[in-house]
């Protein structure tokens, strides 16, 4: 594992050849898609506008708890947290 990780880091080191000091980092492509490819119809509503902050139904507890490794039906149970 250590040998693999070193080989990968050596390979990644070639990014140091590039001078990108003045380039803004890009975290999410959708933040720039609109300015890259203007579309009037989309510009009016936004590329990915967030929904209104109103509660909507979510998953029922019972089917979610059914998948838990250990549960009392209401909570997830885990092994002892503070050992003695």
């Amino acid at each position, binding site marked *: *594992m250590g040998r*693999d*990780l070193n*080989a*990968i*880091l050596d*390979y*990644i*080191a*070639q*990014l140091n050849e*590039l001078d*990108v000091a003045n*380039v*803004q*980092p*890009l*975290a*999410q*492509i*959708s933040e*720039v*898609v609109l300015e*890259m*490819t203007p*579309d009037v*119809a*989309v510009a009016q*509503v*936004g*590329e*990915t*506008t*967030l*929904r209104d902050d109103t509660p909507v139904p979510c*998953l*029922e507890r019972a*089917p*979610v708890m*059914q*998948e*838990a*490794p*250990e549960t009392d039906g209401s909570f*997830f149970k*885990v*092994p*002892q*947290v503070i*050992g003695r």
Partner: protein
Amino acid sequence: MRTEANGTISVGMTLQELGQSVISGRVKAAELVNSYLQRIEARNAKINAYLSVASEDARRTAEDLDAAARRGDPLGSLAGVPVAIKDVIAIEGMTATAGSRILEGYKPPYTATAVRRLKEAGAVVLGKLNCDEFAMGSSNENSAYGVVRNPAALDRVPGGSSGGSAAAVAAELAAATLGTDTGGSIRQPASFCGVVGVLPTYGRVSRYGLIAFASSLDRIGPFARTVEDAAMVLGVIAGHDPLDATSSRRPVPDYVAECHRPVEGLRVGVPAEYFAEGLDQEVKLTVQRAIDSLRAQGCVITPVSLPHTRYAVPTYYVLATAEASANLERFDGVRYGYRAPEVKTLSDMYRETRDRGFGREVKRRILLGTYVLSAGYYDAYYRKGQQVRRVLAEDFLKAFEKVDVIVTPTAPTPAFRIGEKTDDPVSMYLADIYTVTASLAGICGISVPCGVSSEGLPIGAQILGPHFCEGTVFRAARAIEQGQTV
């Protein structure tokens, strides 16, 4: 209607014709589904494309569709079409292992939007498909449930990570499938197996219900035997979804109509960087012939430059592993999936669960991801990766000022042998050298079969288009497909 010797009713019909035939009652969905289930029964043991088969559900759904067709009820455009889904995509009541021991037996309590849309259009889900663990891999050898074999040559890999999705279509174990692509995981296996695979623009298809690997890169897309069929499926699964905040509100065009438009006058860019050292000579010549056929059909072929291409794979392995290390924190043995038994404390439980539940490549990527995000190295790796990501996206934007689409090989070689690259992660990562660029830039693309090697191994051409220009990509891909049969 053509019925082939192999018993698959659908061979020779487009998905559109198939759906119409089921609606009109000329083809019975139940017979269609049964013929596919029989093929799965006969061939899956060799290929290992399916991890689970939902025979009963599929038969019942098909019978309901036939009954609805008899009553004359309105049915969707994919009525009775047998499909299968990569096992990183959730379907209520069916297992979703993500190819990992840590999710063995896990049944999600909800259904992915892309699958819900397929079902609403009448498609029948046959089962879930094998893949590299958490979609991390280029050969399907990282699945905890065994490697998928390439139907074109059983000693070869099908590509990855959506190897099961590509192999199932190639072996006619499903009429169409869904896969996911984070760095090439749809296009590269499509190329290796000789089928069509689509990378939609980031935001075109909802990711709701997709088990996350690298959220800023992950996309769901279709595999099919023809470009038209792939266009048909994309049209069904694409569109805005309030359950995915990154899904776009742009209207979805009629992709089937778009793929039939003539290509005359289409400006096709060919980047020298994708035809350089490391490219197999047969792949090079085969893709060049595909470009010649586009020229013969009236396309204008222009050289373009994507000068930072060589930095794409290292950038990808910084950003994708960083995101993966955060996304995979949720697999802790508390809420779902595997929990290591007989452990005394909570921290032992976390450690043992993750140590026994995750495979080697997943651990490698989590470690790399936490390293590049760690305080002392964040700027040198993660921030730098995000900066180079912008430079790579700008390369494409400049190129698309001059051309409508870009054509390249999908992968540097045809399918390699099982075991050939498993000892050297960097050489495995280079199998994605031509596909990671579009993943980082968020643009759309496709891999379309364009020939076979002297050993009979499929070779794919990759067509890339600007954001939300899937229609143009389908048009060029269909021209390459047609150029083959002329």
